[in-house]
């Protein structure tokens, strides 16, 4: 290989490396989201498919902030849970099975967010053990019944240990932040849940929820 060819190959490699930082997944379909444009979101207590009993409360305590900062009004999560309990509904699965008309009638929210946690806690691997949290969410409009958005996110305390996670400079920074957050923590899984929930529910991310009416970015994405 001549020197010139080598440089060309290098340039192509560098270029594709840079480009891989964005737009690797097919873009989500926001047609229904844009047609409905909810202003308020009811976050129901997450369905917990893990053996860790704290998982649901842990994720729920983090869910309000990213959605509020995205420009939505978020129904107060503790009062929502208490209102269900007052009516004899104590399990997240039963809360999530409530008919949408009933939810709209009591809470008056434009949309409901159903969260399911599939991983929460320590995963033991060959070399290292890690705290991993994975959750998915589905946003459904309570006025039209249309599904507006689905998303999934994962966070791990071992991010950046392998070369394949997150890519690029941004990935390195995210890794650094993750490490910093976790270093001082005694409740590692709870901290990791915070990172996973923020990734899942923040606006302005690839295939994430759109900005809501209270945000200055509303209607621009």
């Amino acid at each position, binding site marked *: 290989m001549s020197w010139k060819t080598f440089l060309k190959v290098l340039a192509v490699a560098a270029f594709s490396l840079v480009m891989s930082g964005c737009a690797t997944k097919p873009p989500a379909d926001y047609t229904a989201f844009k047609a409905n444009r909810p202003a308020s979101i009811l976050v129901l207590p997450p369905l917990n498919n893990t053996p860790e009993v704290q998982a649901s409360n842990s994720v*729920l305590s983090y869910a309000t*902030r990213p959605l509020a900062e995205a420009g939505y009004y*978020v129904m*107060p999560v503790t*009062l929502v849970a208490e209102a269900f309990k007052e009516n004899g509904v104590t399990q997240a699965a039963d809360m999530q099975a409530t008919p949408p008309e009933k939810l709209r009638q009591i809470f*008056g929210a434009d949309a409901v967010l159903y969260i399911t946690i599939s991983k929460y806690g320590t995963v033991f691997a060959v070399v290292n053990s890690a705290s991993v949290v994975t959750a998915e969410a589905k946003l459904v409009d309570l006025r039209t019944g249309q599904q507006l958005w689905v998303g999934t996110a994962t966070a791990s305390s071992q991010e950046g240990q392998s070369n394949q996670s997150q890519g690029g400079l941004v990935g390195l920074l995210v890794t650094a932040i993750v490490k910093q957050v976790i270093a001082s923590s005694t409740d590692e899984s709870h901290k990791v849940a915070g990172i996973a929930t923020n990734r899942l529910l923040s606006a302005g991310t690839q295939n994430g929820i759109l900005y809501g009416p209270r945000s200055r970015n509303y209607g621009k994405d």
Partner: protein
Amino acid sequence: MTKFRLSVAGTVLLCTFLGGCAAPRPPAMYQWQGYQANVDAYLRADTKSLDEQIQLMEEDLKKISAGGGAVPPGYRAHLGLLYGQKGNLDLFAQNVQAEKAQYPESSTFMDFLLRNFKK
């Protein structure tokens, strides 16, 4: 000057890079203080007493007003709930009303709470 210009250009370039494809994220809309931790403490129900939780929420609320920041969605309603759990229905109603006044989107639910939990 040339050096300065170069470093400015470098910074701009770096920012563009780090920004990736996403639109620039707007600055934070609300002051959260310890709100998330307080919600977590309430949901766990075994870490802090109600009095302790109320005290933390009231102290943070003062800090938010002093800093001229916006109180996040759900904050006043959650504070009201803590008072309600202590049997203080006046402060429950007062905080629920404050939530409703700040966030009209909460009206249906706040009215439901006021109807169902009163003296």
